[in-house]
């Protein structure tokens, strides 16, 4: 009896999977690809950075220009992420919980930054706010400097990272529907009460997920920032731009040392993302 069931289950198990060789081949291919294109480059960054020892590595990081780049990157992310958090939540809330004209247009607009090359996004800002741009003369008359200055960098970063939070929340909130909100409304809750006590707790993990992705992009953005920053050392250089400058100066150890900071950020982001995904599934 036992043997019979055992053979039965093993045959049905075999029927559902591929032969051993195929399984090994597919897994091996996927692993080889991952190692070649992700692990090796990442390891190379750290190897290059530490080539001349820990002292050289450390010196590259505490050098004033590097510290200024770190500071500026943190400032840019510190401004653009909270703003996009507010924008993203409001946009998702409006799109999923209310009916209004022009909703489809709004959704398209939210996707725009994803569909436009970041360099183009930067150029648009130069065209608008640069000295030769449409608003340039007015801005310079009022002594406001956006392009080749920190405000310009913040603006393009906000533009480029705009979709992350909204895009994360819209499907989530759509799937949840409006029944819970309606129930809260019938029970006498005000708009704010509904938002903070019913809607937000249901999407909080989605919001955090969106913030993590938004932050990673805000700190790592190169193309758009590169166009509007002007690469002024110690003033308008973010971390990615600083890496590029050092590299172009053949200062490989310093370039890779600073790059490790961005690599660490990426790893941290992935870990946080994995932890959140685990949390959401429970």
């Amino acid at each position, binding site marked *: 009896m036992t043997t019979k069931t055992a053979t039965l289950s093993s045959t049905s198990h075999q029927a559902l999977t591929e032969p051993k060789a195929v399984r090994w081949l597919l897994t091996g291919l996927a692993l080889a690809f991952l190692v070649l294109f992700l692990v090796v480059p990442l390891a190379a960054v750290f190897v290059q950075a530490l080539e001349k020892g820990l002292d050289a590595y450390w010196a590259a990081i505490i050098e004033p220009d590097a510290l200024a780049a770190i500071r500026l990157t943190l400032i840019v992310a510190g401004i653009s992420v909270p703003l996009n958090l507010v924008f993203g939540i409001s946009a998702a809330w409006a799109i999923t919980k209310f009916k209004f004209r022009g909703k489809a247009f709004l959704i398209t607009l939210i996707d725009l930054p994803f569909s436009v090359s970041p360099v183009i996004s930067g150029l648009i800002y130069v065209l608008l706010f640069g000295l030769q741009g449409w608003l340039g003369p007015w801005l310079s008359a009022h002594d406001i400097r956006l392009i080749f200055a920190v405000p310009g960098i913040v603006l393009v970063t906000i533009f480029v990272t705009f979709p992350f939070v909204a895009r994360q929340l819209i499907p989530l909130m759509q799937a949840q529907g409006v029944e*819970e909100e309606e129930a809260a409304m*019938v*029970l006498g809750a005000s708009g704010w009460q509904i938002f903070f006590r019913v809607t937000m707790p249901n999407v909080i993990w989605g919001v955090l997920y969106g913030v993590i992705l938004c932050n990673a992009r805000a700190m790592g953005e190169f193309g758009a920032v590169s166009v509007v920053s002007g690469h002024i050392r110690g003033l308008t250089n973010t971390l990615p731009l600083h890496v590029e400058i050092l590299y172009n100066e053949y200062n490989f150890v310093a370039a890779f040392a600073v790059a490790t900071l961005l690599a660490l950020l990426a790893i941290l982001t992935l870990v946080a993302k994995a932890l959140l995904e685990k949390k959401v599934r429970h």
Partner: protein
Amino acid sequence: MGIQIQNISKKFGTYTALDQIDLTVPSGELVALLGPSGSGKTTLLRIIAGLETPDTGSIHFNGEVATQRHVRDRRVGFVFQHYALFQHMTVFDNIAFGMTVKPKAERPDKKHIRKRVNELLLLIQLDNMADRFPSQLSGGQRQRVALARALATEPKVLLLDEPFGALDAKVRLELRRWLRKLHDEIHVTSVFVTHDQEEALEVADRVVVMNQAKIEQIGTPEEVYDHPATPFVFNFLGHVNLFHCRESDDDQAVAIACLNGIDTGTVGYVRPSDICIRRNAEAADDIAAEVIFIQGAGALPHIELRRLDNGETVHAELPRDQYRQLGLKTGEQVFVHPTNVRVFAPNYQI
């Protein structure tokens, strides 16, 4: 609190959901809105709650106009088909929600809220589940929590949208009897939407049968079942056999079964339980038929027959003892005799 509904119409684009509805729900009654899907019953319920705005017409609560009043000021309790419980809150917090969102001046203190929630938990027989989350409850338990949550703010009107629609047959039956008992205890004016005629007939004081954006009939369960006003009501409240009437005597019942004469276009409606089956022809208008299917299980065995004259199918339901006595077999030839025939004006369509 009584509800008066006057001349309510609602369109969604070109689709008419409600067409000039008038309805009065007397204070303290339990009223069922019964109809097939798309008949407008849920829309009417949502308009009473204020979740939907009517295109025309007005809603009065106890004579006071409530049409412009915001949902949160209407003091209604609403129970959703899929419960709509707050997923991230415990059973206790779900029930307490309505009390905790009140403006500070009106909000009861914590002790009072606790007492009220505990009372309601006893009422719904879930007093040991206060700390559970909705995902840890069964469907029937969730719906009871939803009901307690709606009752917590002491609404003047309780509205239920297909409250048992998502539950399995047995839980449904238990829960609707429980709802009836509950209503007899607290007497809050209640309106519930259902597409299940059995549910409406068993639970409601009064049944409102709706079809295609209009009300077909309003009456007690006995009235709508025994004296349906339209063919639609007749058909919707149970199975039905159609007999085409022939022109002959003025007596309807005879006229219908009469095999001679010209088809007048009039249709007679007969419930399966009003069909007599016998082995020998006893009256001139008995119809010869062949037994084609027998479903003997259940309280009322179901027999399907084919008329020998025109090939139409006749459904009959017999009491168990009579069914046993007859000892019918498939393929046998018998005679059927319709009783209690209802005739409606010929221009009616189902």
